[in-house]
């Protein structure tokens, strides 16, 4: 029977199947950890007297809870400092590779994995973070897990899983000017809804995804979880191989050739079937923005907030719009914005920063807007400085911070105040996600840059060169 990409990688990682239970002992190649979801797992392993089974397959970084200013100084906030110190102690004790604050490789876990070449096609990758789906951009099975599962992987390098259902989302055609990877995925999520892919593993196919760079593909796969999917993946191709070649942990020499030969077999075969399929036309996609409190509540930036909501969903819909201070049928054009946040594992890579810099060069942010850019990693930050992006941003009134998850989830001090509107390149617009009472509008880095300059929501298609 013809196999899907998911089938091929899944089957290659089944240690054994449990007869009659529909469960597989599933092998994990790479386990990424960070300070927030690992301490209780280390405690659990220690309490049970279990050793770490394959520590060489683990990599740690500090990202969720780190300040984005003065990272060379001790962390001021005591609880954050304690949590980050705990990660350092745990990694030292168990001899795990740690890219902590001050390390040249530190950054958001889903930014550093790919840029270091740790993430490779055909792998299985887990992390105690739902956006682990990002790594699927390389044709890997990558998904977020809870802390109990972090402990399971620490103890056995496996998880007990039932194979997820398969879904293919095909987008064909060329996108219109001003439409980026972020707009494509926000469009797809707006069509499927926030739980539309729950229980499924998604493969993104079609010329619109093929045309994306690796960074664009990462943005797409990153947000798979926002429609409930466990993960998302794109078959590896020349774009993937070109991106990986020469990265610090990518295979070298003869092993590179062997790897590429294997990676080239990782695609969905003709005639393979999916349990669910969706097809969209790239030409239907416009620059997107969200207006509500889940990522499925998105629309074209020049559209009006939908009024046709099923009866069963009306209470939640009204609650959401009330929180945002919006009304059904309203347009967001002209709406004044207080903050612009460019960062997160969705959009903090060098191409994102380049796109922002290119637009804001020679312009100024609106005086009432606070515009913050947080690079995804130390390497992105370094690259941005080498290219002079830092100077362009500073001249335009943007504040370039140090790497971390920052105001995407507002665990550190980077918070949007109650009631304030923030156009954000992150992945979630949940109530209070960016700080208690904050109001988030998700968008692409290009929309964010233009919003920062104009100080309000505009139809960006009129602002492109």
């Amino acid at each position, binding site marked *: 029977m013809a196999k899907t990409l998911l089938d091929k990688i899944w089957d290659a990682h089944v240690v054994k199947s449990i007869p009659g239970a529909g469960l597989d002992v599933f092998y994990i190649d790479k386990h990424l950890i960070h300070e*927030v979801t690992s301490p209780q797992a280390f405690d659990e392993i220690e309490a049970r007297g*279990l050793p770490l089974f394959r520590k060489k397959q683990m990599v740690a970084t500090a990202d969720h809870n780190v300040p984005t200013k003065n990272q060379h100084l001790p962390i001021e906030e005591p609880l954050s400092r304690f949590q980050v110190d705990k990660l350092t102690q745990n990694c030292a004790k168990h001899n795990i590779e740690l890219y902590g604050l001050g390390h040249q490789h530190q950054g958001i876990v889903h930014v550093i994995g790919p840029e270091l070449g740790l993430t490779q096609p055909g792998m299985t990758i887990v992390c105690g973070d739902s956006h682990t789906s990002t790594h699927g951009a390389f044709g890997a099975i990558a998904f977020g897990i809870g802390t109990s599962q972090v402990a399971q992987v620490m103890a*056995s390098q496996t998880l007990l899983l039932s194979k997820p259902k398969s879904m293919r989302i095909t987008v064909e055609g060329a996108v219109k000017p001003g439409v980026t990877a972020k707009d494509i995925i926000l469009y797809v999520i707006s069509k499927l809804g926030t739980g539309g892919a729950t229980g499924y593993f998604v493969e993104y196919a079609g010329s619109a995804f093929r045309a994306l760079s690796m960074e664009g593909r990462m943005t797409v796969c990153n947000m798979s979880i926002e429609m409930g999917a*466990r993960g998302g993946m794109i078959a590896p191709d020349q774009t993937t191989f070109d991106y990986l070649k020469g990265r610090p942990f990518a295979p070298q020499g003869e092993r590179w050739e062997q790897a590429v030969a294997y990676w080239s077999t990782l695609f969905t075969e003709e005639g393979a079937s999916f349990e669910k399929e969706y097809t969209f036309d790239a030409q239907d996609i416009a620059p997107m923005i969200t207006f509500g409190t889940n990522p499925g509540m998105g629309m074209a930036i020049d559209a009006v907030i939908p009024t046709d909501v099923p009866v069963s969903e009306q209470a939640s819909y009204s609650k959401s719009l009330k929180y945002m201070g919006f009304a059904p049928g309203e347009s967001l054009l002209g709406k004044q914005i207080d903050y612009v946040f460019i960062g997160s594992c969705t959009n903090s890579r060098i191409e994102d920063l380049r796109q922002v810099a290119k637009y804001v060069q020679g312009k100024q942010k609106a005086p009432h807007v606070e515009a913050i850019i947080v690079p995804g990693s130390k390497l992105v930050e370094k690259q941005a400085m080498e290219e002079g992006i830092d100077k362009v941003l500073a001249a335009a009134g943007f504040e370039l911070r140090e790497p971390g998850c920052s105001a995407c989830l*507002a665990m550190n001090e980077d918070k949007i105040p109650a009631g304030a509107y923030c156009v954000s390149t992150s992945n979630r617009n949940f109530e209070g996600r960016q700080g208690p009472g904050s109001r988030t509008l998700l968008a692409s880095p290009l929309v964010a840059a233009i919003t920062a300059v104009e100080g309000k929501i505009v139809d960006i298609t009129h602002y492109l060169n």
Partner: protein
Amino acid sequence: MEKFEILQSTAVPLPIENIDTDQIIPARFLKATSREGFGENLFRDWRFDNAGQPKADFVLNNGRYSGQILVAGKNFGCGSSREHAAWAIHDAGFKVVISSFFADIFKGNALNNGLLPLQVSDEVLARLFAQLEADPQTTLVVNLVNQELEVPVWEERIPFAIDAYKKECMINGYDDIDFLVNQKEAIEQYEKSRPWAY
């Protein structure tokens, strides 16, 4: 993990759809490094105002409702993988969450912590909300052994599905670690079959 067989309790209704884990436990409360104490901040920003005072209109502050069963709208637990969400619900005294749909990661996390995610149809969920609104003292019986949700006042037993392995784990208080660690030989054998991979 605590064992779970049968629970009889009143219930707390939360008829909102797509409740994400950021609502269940906001990120700023994830700084603790142990599993305990998250219940205090369960639904923090719905439950308390900025000054830390209870919001009268939130159900957990409504004296008419109490119990160990949370009944919530469709697509409960979407968003972040934080297991702290399951810990917070459990820590606040709940043993069961009833909804018509659960997000994957939350569901797994709940099961790994002795918190039963019990899925019913949209129709049953709507009837439960109406019932709890009419009578906050309504008692529900969750029988995991028979896989039935009993609503005595309706004289109905509603069957529910659960993975057979997970059911066994919950009834006996087992978790996956014990099982997986015992697979060591098979795992090492598997690793030897693909030496190029590491």
